[in-house]
């Protein structure tokens, strides 16, 4: 048996493209705008969300036959909150600066629509292995948007990438200036719009019919 059969493959790869949580389902936009002014926090956030969603999916999937339907939301929230607390403590211990840049947004992963959505829509009805892949897929689908946004915004907003100067001094001497608008949230939502624009132009089946 192949490691990835049709369904598990869709669970892993779908969210990267045609089922993307950010640019197709338009979930998790708030944190996507807030943490992408620089590339480094964007990458850390992407990893954190991927880990939390994957583990939360596995735990919920394992418990899915034990959880009474009425209290499933509370159980999901407990699992999510525990994982987020662990991730938050780990970041504080090993990446304090980045943690400070991410500020409340690490804690707010708990209320991230993607996390709750995947537990509710996928993990409750599927086994641990597909749930794990689904979590990884959605985390990465969210993550690559964040990385693209962080890349463009840091490059044009600060002239740097991961803190290293990329745009040479000669440009600045010739009159080039960093675009302050790139570091502001409105530009992030505009860029997200541009990504959605390009994505839909390439995937005609995603375009709404009027």
């Amino acid at each position: 048996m192949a490691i990835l059969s049709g369904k598990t493959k869709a669970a892993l790869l779908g969210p990267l493209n045609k089922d993307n949580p950010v640019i197709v389902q338009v979930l998790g936009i708030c944190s996507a705008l807030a943490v992408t002014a620089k590339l480094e926090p964007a990458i850390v956030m992407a990893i954190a969300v991927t880990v939390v969603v994957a583990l939360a999916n596995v735990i919920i999937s394992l418990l899915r036959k034990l959880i009474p339907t009425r209290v499933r939301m509370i159980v999901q929230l407990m699992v999510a909150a525990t994982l987020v607390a662990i991730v938050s403590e780990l970041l504080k211990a090993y990446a304090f600066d980045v943690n400070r840049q991410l500020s409340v947004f690490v804690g707010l992963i708990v209320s991230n629509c993607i996390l709750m959505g995947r537990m509710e829509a996928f993990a409750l009805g599927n086994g641990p292995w597909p749930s794990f892949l689904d979590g990884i897929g959605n985390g990465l689908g969210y993550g690559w948007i964040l990385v693209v946004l962080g890349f463009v915004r840091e490059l044009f907003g600060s002239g740097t990438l991961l803190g290293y100067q990329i745009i040479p001094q000669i440009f600045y001497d010739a009159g080039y200036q960093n675009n302050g608008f790139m570091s502001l949230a409105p530009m992030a939502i505009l860029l997200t719009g541009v990504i959605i624009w390009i994505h839909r132009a390439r995937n005609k089946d995603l375009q709404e019919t009027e």
Partner: protein
Amino acid sequence: MKALRNYLDKIKPNFLEGGKLHWAHSTFDAIETFLYVPNSTSKSGVHIHDARDSKRTMIVVVLALIPALLVGMYNVGLQHYLAIGQAEAVDGLAKFLYGLLAVLPQIVVAYGVGLGIEFVVAQVKKEEVAEGFLVSGILIPMIMPIDTPLWMLALATAFAVVFAKEVFGGTGYNIFNVALIARAFLFFSYPSKMSGDQVWVRTADTFGVGGGTVVDGYSGATPLSQLVTADSGNFADFTFTGVTGQPLSIIEMFIGLIPGSIGETSLAAILLGALILIVTGVASWKIMFSIFAGGFATVAVINLFAANLVMEMPAYYHFLLGGFAFGAVFMATDPVTAARTETGKWIYGLLIGFLAIVIRVFNPGFPEGMMLAILFMNAFAPLIDLYIVDANIKRRMKRGIAAKTLTNGGKGNE
């Protein structure tokens, strides 16, 4: 003229269906209808048509802008020669020439980039080239500081045309004023090039004309920012100063011989433009009037509770300085982005005047509030219209029902 018409007729078949240059049909159509009023008439039904199509309307706006542009060019030269201490040494024509040379590249860049994008988009979508950019292209340089680098101007124009216009569907569909979006983009992207006291007076030479070292005591701050930075004292004791520290008279402010964006300084030229727009019926006098009325009323109230210099400033200074008048006459009246119902125009104008003054007076970070006030109300214009239309429908409905019950009641009495 006849020769031009004949030439156009001669080359026209190339651009029609099946012609070898058909791919460039939009471009040809744009040039032909720009030069001549199109001769096409409707084929069915009865239509009443004004001979004045939107290309002709746009040209009237451009004409109305010319006085402000010319005074602005002269003023650019004047401020330059004042700053380098040669104001007496050179005559008026030389000052105008300097300003012309400094402003012309900006107009060329704005038109080049904007029209370039418009033509390409129209060609790709196989539509007619829309005429909206004729006005935006001249407005954009006129609301920028003279020292805006050309690449920034090009970037802002491209951004505004693509994100404020084309994504909404092109000319006539935009929510926000395109020229103001270009300015807002630069304002938030490169604040150091769009505000402060370094950008309003060009001190470098232009194509070898002018240039020199600035005189001692030079300051390029606009009157409005002088007011914001002076934090104490009474307005009565406060004097606005020009670039060399000389006091500015009200007459100079009225003619527009003060530092500021190219087109905004001269109230006299703007009023002339307003007259052209109102007489030709191109722009709404209701919007212009209500903006000034809204501004006046707001200042009157603020003056009563004045606690600092800015709050004490009387209304006519607000109209003389900064972009208030220019915005009221040329930007807020843009028929696409303004309110369209007649009552709505009053509300829209009053609120712009109110907001512009409130931003000016209460936000020290923004000495000028006109741009944000107009953009903000652009967003609300459709909402205002919706409620006005809704209220009209309700009122008529009520009248209809009242009339109906009256007739029924009459029958009941028989």
